[in-house]
């Protein structure tokens, strides 16, 4: 038997074993084993660095993390499949450990720790909060799922406004609501509402079911409440409308006796349903009649909640965009005539290139928790000029203001970085990616929100060695902030007289990089979000000669073929004689 064969047999045997051992465990309700020393040792080895030995979220790494590592001692778990005020199921804890929490520092342990080890850790985590001992969390019912459709999304969009989700998540969901800047979590730390367009940062996953569960159950320990209570459970749409009408009257006037009785009747009806709801939340078993009644009352509420989930699902791209490399590289498009201004439709014809940003952690002061996730870019050029449209999301528009602790002036800003001289070929090094180095300077366009129509042209030979160019800036700019997003339009001549400027040349791959400052995130100077070098190219103008040479070559080829054929035929004829 060859090694390959042996390996294959062992593999199959393992599969069979797994199916025998694992499947029944899942079928039995996915419970953690009893807490053990093994679980404790694993926890101390892998988790305690951030979550603390006692599980209080105060490990050595905690202070630099945002969001903070969870404090397990309060029993407040963000990502649950259970209702408001309830503890998570064992499976919920297992899933978070396995998959990690996107957009946070919590990594996925699947593939690093075995399944058994992850369950051991679940068991140990539960020992940090007494409430787990007699808990019987009830899972949110997902059976009434409303399939995704345009109609459902439209209803969801309307409900999103009605229920005032925009107060925190913003008008189009970028986390820029009017309440967003003041939010803190249960421990008093700053917390931001999710940018619903960035599904790759949803801590608990971005399936429609995940969204539905967060909406119904809330995100414990954060400002995100359960919204189940925002509906009038048990009332028909007509009854609810009547209640609204009577309440409006109440505000300005006394209700007539009959109206008062009617109002109280509606209120009692609502309470009768809600009492059962509260009972279930308290972990009490409802009677079969109560259960049936609640199911009827909850059906329209769940339906509406699915519409909301479908709407949120519709926001933003499905997956994180591919970065601007390979076939996604930024290609400035040639466009004869005037280049389009900022709001022009023409920009919509181009696809965005996506540049991910990370925190600048090389040079003090560092930014471990950057809030600017990425920059996108589009570009047009003509015979004389080049124009760019950059966008990036920022939950708050921060005009210059002094930082409370450091007194530094904080402000939203961006810098677009090019080398002064484009490296000739891949072997010649680029300047250092953070604002160049002593031997290779970079050329920068610096824009800040307080002067939205100005680009400051700078050169730098290191992060603290930047100089503003002395000549008046030849770069035009216009920046606007709307719905949690900056759009910055920049235009410059392709070539300039200044030897410290980059000269844009068609067909050449030009390095480009970004620095972003979010004032509300404490970004200032070196504390900021940065990207590495990417490259972009001014897509060469398709030559008119393409109408001449290819047909010419084709003609010649055909001619040569005919000539060859004739020659061969002649020779064959000769041979036959």
């Amino acid at each position, binding site marked *: 038997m060859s090694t390959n064969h042996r390996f294959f047999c062992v593999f199959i045997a393992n599969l069979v074993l797994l199916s025998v051992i694992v499947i029944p465990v899942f079928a039995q309700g996915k419970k953690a084993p009893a807490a053990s020393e093994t679980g404790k040792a694993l926890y101390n080895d892998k988790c305690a*660095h*951030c979550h603390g030995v006692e599980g209080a979220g105060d490990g*050595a*790494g905690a*202070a*630099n993390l945002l969001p903070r590592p969870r404090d397990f001692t*309060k*029993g*407040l778990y963000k990502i649950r499949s259970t209702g*408001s*005020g309830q503890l998570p199921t064992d499976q919920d804890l297992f899933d978070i450990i396995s998959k*990690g929490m996107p957009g946070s*520092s919590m*990594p*996925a*342990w699947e*593939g*690093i720790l075995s399944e058994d080890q992850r369950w051991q850790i679940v068991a140990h985590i539960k020992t940090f909060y007494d409430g787990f001992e007699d808990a019987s969390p009830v899972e949110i019912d997902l059976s009434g799922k409303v399939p995704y459709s345009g109609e459902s999304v439209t209803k969801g969009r309307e409900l999103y406004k009605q*229920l*005032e989700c925009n*107060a*925190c998540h913003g008008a189009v969901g970028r986390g820029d609501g*009017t*309440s967003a*800047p*003041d*939010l*803190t979590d*249960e*421990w*008093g*730390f700053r917390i931001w509402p999710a940018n619903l367009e960035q599904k790759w940062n949803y801590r608990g996953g971005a399936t429609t079911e995940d969204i539905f569960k967060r909406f119904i159950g*809330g995100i*414990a*320990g954060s*400002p*995100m*409440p*359960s*919204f*189940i*209570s*925002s*509906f*009038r459970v048990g009332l028909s749409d007509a009854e*609810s409308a009547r*209640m*609204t009408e009577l*309440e409006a009257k109440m*505000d300005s006037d006394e209700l007539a006796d009959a109206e008062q009785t009617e109002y109280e009747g509606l*209120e009692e009806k609502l*309470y009768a349903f*809600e009492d059962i709801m*509260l009972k279930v*939340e*308290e972990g009490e078993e409802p009677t079969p009649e109560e259960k049936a009644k609640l199911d009827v009352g909850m059906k329209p509420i769940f339906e509406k909640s699915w519409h909301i989930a479908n709407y949120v699902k519709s926001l933003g791209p499905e997956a994180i965009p591919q970065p601007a490399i390979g076939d996604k590289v930024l290609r400035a498009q040639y466009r004869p005539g005037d280049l389009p201004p900022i709001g022009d439709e023409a920009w919509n014809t181009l696809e965005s290139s996506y540049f991910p940003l990370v925190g600048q*952690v090389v040079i*003090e002061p*560092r930014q*471990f928790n950057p809030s600017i996730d990425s920059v996108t870019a589009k570009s047009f050029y003509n015979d004389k000029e080049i124009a760019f449209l950059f966008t990036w999301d920022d939950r708050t528009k921060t005009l210059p203001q002094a930082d409370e602790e450091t007194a530094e002036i904080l402000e939203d800003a961006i810098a677009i970085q090019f080398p002064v001289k484009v490296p000739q070929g891949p072997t010649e090094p680029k300047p250092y990616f953070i604002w160049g180095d002593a031997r290779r300077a970079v050329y920068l366009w610096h824009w800040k929100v307080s002067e939205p129509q100005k680009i400051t042209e700078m050169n730098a030979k290191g992060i603290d060695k930047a100089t503003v160019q002395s000549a008046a800036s030849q770069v035009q700019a216009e920046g606007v902030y709307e719905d949690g997003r900056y759009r910055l339009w920049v235009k410059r001549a392709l070539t300039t007289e200044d030897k410290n400027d980059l000269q844009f040349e068609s067909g050449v791959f030009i390095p480009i990089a970004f620095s972003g400052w979010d004032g509300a995130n404490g970004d200032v100077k070196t504390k900021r979000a940065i990207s590495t070098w990417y490259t972009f190219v001014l897509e060469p103008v398709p030559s008119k000669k393409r109408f001449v040479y290819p047909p010419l070559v084709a003609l010649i080829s055909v001619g040569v073929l005919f000539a060859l054929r004739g020659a061969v035929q002649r020779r064959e004829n000769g041979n036959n004689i």
Partner: protein
Amino acid sequence: MKTQVVSIIALFIVCYYVGAAGAAGKDEAVESLVFPASYKVVNVANGGTITGVVKYEGDAPEMKKLEITKDQNVCGKTDKFEESLVVGDGNALRDVIVYLIDISEGAGFSEDKSVKYEIDQKGCQFLPHVNLLPVGQQLTMINSDRIMHNIHIFSNTNKAYNKAQGKNRRKMRLPKVKKAEGPVPIKCDVHGWMQGWIAYIPHPYFAASNEKGEYKIENVPPGTYKLGYWQAACGTNKDAPVSVTVEAGGTVTQDLTLALKK
């Protein structure tokens, strides 16, 4: 797999830089009330009354005006002030919880159905600011504002609570609370300045002072008790409670003077 390894390496790099920023937890330790280990309900006949006025010692600091950042038409109609220390005429101190620390036997809660346990959210403010809720009672939240508030109660002992009370919900009832606790903060995250307090009390010998600083504890079984207080900015007198002797059917006056926590 690759991304996991990368993220773990990144995590270790982050951990390596620990200590740079020493941002300590912002969790301010809120002082709590003292509850009896056990409490026995007995029939109290000819109980006495403890009453008095709570005053603030010295010049009252100027109240900080709150910045109303949203929903101006509802929240910004009148000026609002931070309410951790509300001092009225004659230095009268509002929102002081005065209670018997060491009572272990006494009356049950009033059976009077007309007593309502309600907090109104009006003009984006919790009214009253400090609330006493008997364990086992249901609290009703009123939303007079007709805009969305979220009821976020920061319990440790009882279940945490955070539910939205949309404009559709003029009244909403909360689950019954099971254990004595608090006072715990109640907040609305939508309107970050909104804050109040709820104490879940296990016996009826608690009172909150009104705007004149007055408080009254009634139907107290005759005896000598430790009288405690709690105030958001002034703290508690847990370590040095006042001794009060109540006589059958009598009224004892005990005024209190509080100063800011040092």
